[in-house]
């Protein structure tokens, strides 16, 4: 049977066909839909949203030790969080096959950096597989599990946004009948104490030599000889772009198993073509190793290192060919992403934006948009959890320089469970002059609404213990944990004031569900501008709601977008905004 599938759907299908029985992940674009599709196979695969990527990797590692074929999936920066267990598991080796899916985001469509995670394979000394379309996502994953078990190695399965989120046609297969292997206690193998680790490292080096032999023979690496004037070595999505541009007018060494690289095959290919190009997205990962082996090739001299590639970029870089196109003599205004109409974060950030010199350390999520105009109520955004801990550092820098201002640190509910808790502990333990704020919208928002430890439901749809953010903060030692509806601007303002004046540890939890959660009651009313009363003061525009804008010289609220949160209504000093539909 053939189906049009995204790479993420195909990875989920591949896990099913490969006989995977345990899968864990933390949501992150572009990886999220892998686990969301694995639940389609919940009769035979246990799957979970872990609180963070490190936990997800450890759960999958444990499952592998326990004998199951297991999978952990995360976005590229999530692998940084999970790096600790991954590096050591590469020493220990597997029982059931283990695959870590790293979904990189060239061009940073939804990320804070565009790190090239192929270096993780080399760094951690684990084998790497790179598919170039949805069919390969499925088929290569099955081969990855065979390699993992045969060579006793974890596998880094590296994909990118255009693999994850592009759809192409996939021929489906049957599920392989793979039994969970018996668990046998094996202290020298699975206890990474120094004496055992020393021996393990020697095993790893030997394994890499064997894997290079495999790489030279692997069905995942293949040569396509056509016109031999140009030879192209490529992997992942870049292969598809190259093929689109050159078709049969070039020969290809198409790499799907990219660590260790098949150096014999590369040498053979290089000797059979006149001019050798390496076409890869982001870093010169393959090119460096080819050049280090003394083989002449052209790569990043012409192919950009920044952002994602496409056929047009490759045609221009290598052939000097440009596609004709026209631009218009019309000035286009930027369209940055914005908080949705009715977003509960708006009331909080609007309140914070009123005092311009307040320092607010932010984090990763929809609420990062609080940094955008017109709110601009965020000073930093680094990584998951830094909203609290980087704020702690700033507060200490202020403290030593005699500055008394309190810093506000912001994380979402899912981020709080991910790695906000440790920062919250640090603030109490080391007496930070700061206020942690959890923006609890009852869901993991930006990635498209995944359950988390605070929602009372698991990925597999079962009801479970709902972990209470307020009780956790109290247990940590916050004397006051103020729960406030962020859309009630007066209450929000009072809470912030009280927090600034507090002499003991004080935390804020803003609580109001994301407006996009399905099944919430429909808004009772919408807001509308009384154009006679509008004095054109533009105060309502300062809340940064996409439904509110100027039309024909006065404020206007687009009724098809408004959800009646009434934040704009509260900032209008002339009572020009009222309710309709009550």
């Amino acid at each position, binding site marked *: 049977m053939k189906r049009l599938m995204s790479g993420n759907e195909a990875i989920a299908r591949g896990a099913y066909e490969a006989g995977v029985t345990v899968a864990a992940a933390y949501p992150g674009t*572009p990886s999220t839909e892998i686990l969301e599709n694995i639940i389609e196979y919940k009769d035979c695969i246990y799957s979970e949203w872990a609180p963070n990527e490190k936990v997800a990797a450890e759960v999958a590692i444990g499952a592998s030790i326990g004998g199951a074929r297991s999978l952990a999936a995360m976005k590229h920066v999530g692998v940084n969080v999970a790096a600790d267990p991954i590096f050591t598991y590469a020493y220990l080796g597997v029982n059931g096959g283990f695959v870590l899916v790293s979904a990189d985001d060239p061009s940073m469509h939804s990320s804070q950096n565009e790190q090239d995670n192929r270096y993780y394979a080399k760094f951690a000394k684990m084998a790497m597989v790179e598919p170039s379309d949805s069919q390969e996502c499925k088929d290569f994953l099955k081969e990855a599990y065979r390699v993992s078990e045969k060579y006793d190695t974890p596998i880094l399965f590296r994909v990118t946004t255009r693999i994850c989120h592009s759809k192409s046609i996939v021929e489906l297969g049957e599920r392989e009948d793979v039994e969970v292997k018996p668990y046998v206690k094996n202290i020298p193998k699975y206890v990474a104490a120094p004496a055992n680790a020393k021996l393990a490292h020697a095993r790893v080096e030997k394994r890499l030599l064997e894997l290079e032999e495999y790489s030279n023979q692997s069905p995942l690496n293949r040569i396509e000889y056509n016109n031999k004037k140009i030879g192209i070595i490529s992997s992942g999505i870049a292969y598809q772009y190259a093929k689109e541009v050159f078709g049969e007018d070039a020969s290809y060494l198409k790499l799907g198993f990219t660590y260790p690289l098949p150096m014999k095959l590369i040498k053979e290919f290089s000797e059979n073509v006149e001019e050798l190009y390496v076409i890869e997205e982001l870093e010169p990962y393959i090119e460096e190793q080819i050049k280090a082996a003394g083989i002449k090739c052209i790569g990043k001299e012409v192919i950009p290192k920044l952002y994602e590639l496409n056929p047009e970029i490759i045609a221009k870089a290598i052939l000097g060919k440009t596609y004709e196109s026209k631009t218009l003599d019309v000035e286009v205004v930027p369209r940055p992403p914005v908080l949705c109409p009715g977003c509960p974060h708006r009331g909080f950030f609007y309140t914070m934006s009123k005092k311009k010199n307040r320092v607010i350390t932010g984090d990763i999520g929809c609420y990062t948009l609080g940094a955008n105009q017109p709110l601009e109520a965020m000073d930093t955004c680094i990584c998951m959890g830094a909203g609290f801990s980087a704020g702690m550092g700033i507060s200490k820098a202020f403290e030593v320089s005699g500055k008394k201002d309190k810093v506000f640190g912001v994380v979402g509910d899912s981020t709080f469970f991910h790695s906000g808790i440790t920062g919250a502990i640090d603030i109490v333990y080391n007496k930070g002059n700061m206020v942690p704020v959890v923006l609890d919208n009852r869901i993991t928002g930006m990635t498209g609404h995944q359950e988390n430890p605070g929602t009372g439901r698991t990925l597999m749809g079962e009801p479970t213990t709902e972990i209470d953010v307020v009780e956790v903060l109290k247990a940590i030692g916050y004397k006051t944990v103020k729960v406030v509806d962020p859309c009630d601007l007066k209450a929000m303002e009072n809470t912030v004031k009280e927090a600034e004046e507090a002499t003991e540890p004080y935390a804020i939890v803003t609580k109001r569900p994301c407006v996009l959660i399905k099944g919430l009651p429909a808004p009772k009313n919408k807001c509308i501008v009384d154009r006679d009363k509008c004095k054109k003061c533009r105060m309502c525009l300062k809340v940064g709601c996409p439904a509110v804008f100027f039309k024909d010289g006065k404020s206007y609220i687009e009724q098809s977008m408004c959800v009646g949160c009434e934040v704009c209504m509260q900032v209008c000093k002339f009572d020009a905004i009222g309710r309709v539909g009550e």
Partner: protein
Amino acid sequence: MPLEGLVNKMNSVKNILLVGVGGQGTILVSKVLTAGLMKAGYDVKMSEVHGMAQRGGSVTTQVRYGEKVYSPLIGKGMADILVAFEKMEAVRWIDYLKPDGIVVVNNYEIPSMPIATGKAEYPHGILESLKDNFKTIVIDAAQAATEIGNIKTQNIVLLGALVKAFNLTEVDWIEVLRETITEKMLDINIKAFNRGMEL
């Protein structure tokens, strides 16, 4: 340069570029479109964006079909048809269109945040400029959708307009809609599609 003799093989593949604002339903259109093209026996690839960019930002979806498609992604000057769900977005992505390509543009404005806050003005003269430079089809999808009874069906009105403009009538689109859209929303979307075909 030794490579000059190379022939571009992209000509047999058709490229559709859908652009709009996050939340306008471009993804549903591409879902219907790809299902229909696959049914017609084409190799199909589609690429879209998720996550941050979807929050009211500028979004694009690319659909490519033909005998054999390699890249899911196109670059500048490669699209055969540009369907803009919002007027200003047509201008933003116009350099992705071939000079002899077709523009289907929704005569509908969504002010972006700099416009909403008064820092910038919504550009004037978009439709005139498009018409002066390209084969342009202007669709009042919002009006059509409102008349049908649900403003949110603008996207399917535009799908109808695209099918007509690009002459994709070899596919039974009503059947495809039946297979891809939930029962509750089916009738109104069939109406929207037919209306788009008539405009």
